[in-house]
C-alpha cells in the first residue's frame, strides 16, 4: 500500500506540474513511475483510475504499437 501511495503521490506531483502522464502496459506512467490499474487485451489497454476525491475514471486506448509514442492520459482526475 505504501509503495502505491508513493506512486500516487508522484502522479499527483506530475499532474500538478501539468505534465501529461502516458499510458502503457504497466499503468499510467511518468518517468518510469506507474500507477494502476491497466489491463491489456486484444483491443489495447483498458485502464481504471481511482482519484482521491472518490471519483473514478475509465478509458480504453488502442495498441500504439512498437516504436510509436505511448497514449496520453487525458482524464480529469484531480489528485
Amino acid at each position: 500500500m505504501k509503495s502505491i501511495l508513493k506512486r500516487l503521490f508522484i502522479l499527483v506531483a506530475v499532474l500538478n506540474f501539468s505534465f501529461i502522464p502516458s499510458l502503457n502496459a504497466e499503468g499510467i506512467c511518468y518517468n518510469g513511475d506507474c500507477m494502476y490499474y491497466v489491463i491489456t487485451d486484444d483491443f489495447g489497454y483498458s485502464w481504471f483510475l481511482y482519484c482521491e476525491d472518490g471519483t473514478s475514471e475509465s478509458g480504453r486506448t488502442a495498441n500504439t504499437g512498437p516504436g510509436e509514442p505511448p497514449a496520453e492520459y487525458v482524464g480529469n482526475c484531480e489528485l
Partner: protein
Amino acid sequence: MLVIVNFNFQNKLVSSVKATFLTLLIFFITGCADKKSYLSEIPDIEFFTIKPISAFDISKVEVFDAQDWPFVKDTSNYFSSIGDIKLVTKNKIWISDPISGVVAEYDSTGKKIRIILDSGRGPNEVEKPSSIIKTNNSYNQFYHIYDVGQKTLIKIDTSGLEHSRFNSSLLGINGLENKIILKENNRILTSSLLYPEYSLIELDSVGNFSKGIVKKIIPDGFQPMTHNNIIFEFSRTNKKLVYAYSGIPIIFINDQKNQIGIDLEPKKQLSEINTLLKKLPQNKQITVKKLIKNILIDETNNQLIVSYLNDILFIDLEKNKIYLYSFFNRNKEKIKFHTFKKVGDKIFLINFFTGNIKCISLSALKKSNNT
C-alpha cells in the same frame, strides 16, 4: 402623429414580446432536444418508463458515525487493493486483493488468519482475484473466485480448497471490481466489452456465449468505449435485473412486472456531468467518469442500494421512497469512496486511493432515519 407614435410603440412592444417568446421557445426546444437526444441514444430505453428522482419521496440523511474498520490500522495487514469482501461465516471474512494477487481470511476483529489463495498460476493460486461469489448446492457451500488476470473462475470450498476452475475470454474486466453473477444452472452474468453489440452478456456454465442482455451504447470501433461499462445486480429469487451504464445517471430496473428507469439527474445535461455519447474515432484518447459505482438488491427489506457519486441511495420502489445518505467523519468532512460492499449487517465504504475503509451498521442507518 401621436397615434402613429403610439402605433409604432405598440408594434415595437408586440415585436419585443414576440422576440422574447421566440427566444424562450428556441431555448426550451433546444434544451429539450439536447436532453432527448442524450436519452434517445441509450439502447432499448423505449421499453422503460423513465421516472425522475424527484418523483420519489426523498429523505436526505447525514451520517456522522462512520468508523474506520479496525484492521486498516494494523500495519501487518497491508494490502494493495480490495476486489471484494465476503462474510463466509460469522467470524470469517474473505478479502480479495487483485494487485497483490491473494485472497486472505480475516476474523471479525480484523486479524489476518491466513492466505486462502496465494499468488501464482497453479492450483490454489490466483493472479488478480476480484469477485468472490457464494454458490450453494443441496449439500455444500462453495465460493467462486473470479481471477481477472487469467479470466478464470475458481471454485473453492469454505476451507479454501480448490475444487475446479475454468477460463473464458469473454469474462469481463471493469477495474478492481469485476462483478460476476452465477444464475441457475451455473449460467454466468458478466459485463464485458469483448463481445460485439452487448455490454452485459450471459455465458453458459463453461464460459461460452449464451445470449446478450444489455446492448452497448457506443458501438465497437468507436470511442468513448468505456461508456459501455455496466454496473448490475440480479436477484435469483424474483428474476429482477437492475443495471446502469456506469457513466450515465439512470438506474434501469427490469423484473417480470415492470421496466422502470430512475433518472438521478433529470435537470442536468450529460455534458455537465460526463463525457458525451458522441461517437469518436477509436484512436481518440478520452475518459469516462464512473457515476454509478455499485448496485445491490436487498431482498430482505425489498429495496435497492445504489451508490451514486459519494452518496448511497436506498430505494424502495413499492413505497416510492428514497433515503439518500451522505457520510461524514467526526470532523464533518464528507467521506469519499469508490465503492461500497454490504457485509452482513454492515456497509463498507472503500476508497481505493487512500486504502481507507469506513464501516457503518445498517441498524445505525435505520436509527438515523427515525431521528
